Every structure is written in structure tokens, then in C-alpha cells.
């Protein structure tokens, strides 16, 4: 028996083991925070603190995934991509996070536009109307662009599979859609973060 046999073993880690490791890491971090920190102070005192947390979390995770997706989209554009499976998966995850960010954004919007004088919209209209009338209104619409764009990209990648790689215009199409969705994500994310910084919901 060769003593180096274990070095030759090529076995990929299972998805279940990866999910377990990620779950344990996130669970440990959450348990540590909840056991040692005033969690309500972390969320903020506003009525919309909970939907704001979910909305921000979904948007932040989408930003991570979208950034990697943008890089892989560029690799696809050049025709030199090996991690095509990762792009298929990331496009799908991007579409999922886009949907979640929109759903939680709707929930948060209820608190944003509440009629009481303490709501962010009331405050902006009284003090900085341009922030609501231009930047927020634009942000709320272009954030919606990310969903159909990422869904279309994911659909093409799964429907055509490896056939995308040998068809120049299909590669260009998917790469352009993913780059555009990233552009809309970054603009919406930046404006959302700025609005939240000025007046949290």
C-alpha cells in the first residue's frame, strides 16, 4: 500500500458540508452578538428598523454576489471562462437576492412614506425635498431593473447551458445584461445607503 495514496485523492467537498460550515460560522457569529451586545440598539430605534435590516442584508449580499458575477460576466465576454457553473449559480443567486431586496424594500417603504411627521419622506419633504423628489424616487424605480435583468441572464445560462460558450452574441448578451444589472444595483445601493444615512426609517 502506498503511503501517499491520500495525497492523490481528488474528492470534491459536498454541498451539504459546505452549507454546514457556513451555517455554523453564521450561527456562531449571531450567537456571540446576541449574547454580548444590545441587539435592539444595533438595529436602531426607528419603526422600520426590522424591515430595514432585512432589506439592507439582502442588498448587501446581492452586492457581494453581483460583484463576483460581474467578474465572471467579463470572463464570459472574452470567451475565456472556466467557472461557467459558478456563473450559472451566481446569476440565479443574484436574481434571488434581487427579489428578496425588492420584497423587503416594499415592506420598508411603508415606514418610509408613513404620513406622520417623523417618517423619512415627511422629513425630507420639509428639509431636503430634492432628496426624496429626485434621488429616492429614481432609486426606487431603478432598483426594480435588477430583477428582470438577472432572471433573463440566469434563464439564458441554464436554458442553453454550454451552448452559450460557442455563440458569440449569446455570450455578449449575457455579459451585457449582468453588467447592466450590476450598474443598476450599485446606483440603487449607493442612493439607498445615502438616504438611510441622512434619515433612517
Amino acid at each position, binding site marked *: 500500500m502506498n503511503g501517499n495514496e491520500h495525497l492523490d485523492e481528488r474528492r470534491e467537498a459536498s454541498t451539504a458540508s459546505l452549507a454546514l460550515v457556513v451555517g455554523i460560522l453564521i450561527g456562531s457569529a449571531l450567537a456571540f452578538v446576541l449574547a454580548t451586545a444590545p441587539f435592539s440598539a444595533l438595529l436602531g430605534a426607528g419603526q422600520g428598523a426590522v424591515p430595514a435590516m432585512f432589506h439592507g442584508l439582502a442588498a448587501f449580499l446581492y452586492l457581494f454576489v453581483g460583484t463576483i458575477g460581474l467578474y465572471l460576466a467579463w470572463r464570459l465576454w472574452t470567451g475565456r*471562462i*472556466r*467557472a*461557467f*457553473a*459558478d456563473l*450559472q*449559480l451566481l446569476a440565479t443567486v443574484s436574481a434571488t437576492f434581487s427579489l428578496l431586496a*425588492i420584497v423587503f424594500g*416594499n*415592506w420598508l*417603504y*411603508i415606514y418610509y*412614506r*408613513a404620513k406622520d411627521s417623523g417618517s423619512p419622506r415627511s422629513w425630507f419633504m420639509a428639509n431636503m425635498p430634492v432628496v426624496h*423628489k*429626485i434621488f429616492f*424616487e*429614481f432609486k*426606487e*424605480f*431603478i432598483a*426594480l*431593473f435588477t430583477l*428582470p*435583468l438577472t*432572471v*433573463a441572464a440566469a*434563464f*439564458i445560462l*441554464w*436554458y*442553453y*447551458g*454550454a*451552448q452559450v*460558450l*460557442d*455563440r458569440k*452574441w*449569446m455570450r*455578449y*448578451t449575457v455579459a*451585457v*445584461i449582468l453588467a*447592466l444589472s450590476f450598474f443598476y444595483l450599485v446606483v440603487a445601493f449607493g442612493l439607498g445607503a445615502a438616504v438611510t444615512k441622512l434619515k433612517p426609517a
Partner: protein
Amino acid sequence: MSGKLLEREREVEVAWTPSASRFIPNGAAVAAIISAMLGLITLAVVNLGTAASKAFNEWVHGIGKLWMPGAEGIGPYSGKETLSALVWIGSWIVLHVALRSRDLNLGRWLIVFLVGIGIATTLLWPPVFEYLAGH
């Protein structure tokens, strides 16, 4: 094509791919991008309409209130999302069935898509739609 594809699948890690021996026409890809564009143009046009007409604005809000939880608080935005999604999904189904077996000039349709997305974005810039709505 099939031999080249099989070679590709050996070179590149692919999560899932259809049968390599069957060439899939690009009509389904055209349907996917054009329906997305139509949904977003709908969003822009409906928003312009709500800025121009109070009655239309109330009607759009009523559409959102038909099904969306919290639509009363979300306001007309709920109806704009609903109409945009309906046009997107509805046109996708129709176009997919109509185009899936056709091979089209994808480059040309990509340009149409980009122009449409550009128009939708421009129409949603508040100074533009407020001006067009007569404010």
C-alpha cells in the same frame, strides 16, 4: 456543433447543460431579453401616467391593492410594480412560445434591448418625467 460542444463540456465546468447534440435556436434568449425590456418600459410609462393624471394614479394604486400585502401603505408604487411584472411575465410567455424555435439576429435584438432600457431609464429620471407630465 455537437463534437465541439462535448469538447467544451470537458474543458469547462458546467452545472447543467441541455443535450449537446441538439442545437437550440436563440429565439428563447431574444424572448427573455425583450420581455424584460417591455416590463421596464411599462414601469416607466405607467409612472409617467401617474405623474400626469391623478385619476390614473388612483387606478394604479387600486391594482396594487388587489393583491399586494401592505399596498395601502406602499401606495401607487405597488400598482406600478404589479403592472410592470404582469407585462414582463405575460410578454415572456407569449414571445417564448412564438420565438423558441426560430434563430434570430441576436446582435440586432441586443441593440433593441439596450435602446429600450435606455429609454426606460431616461423616462424614470424624475426631472424628465415631471417635465413630460407637465409639472
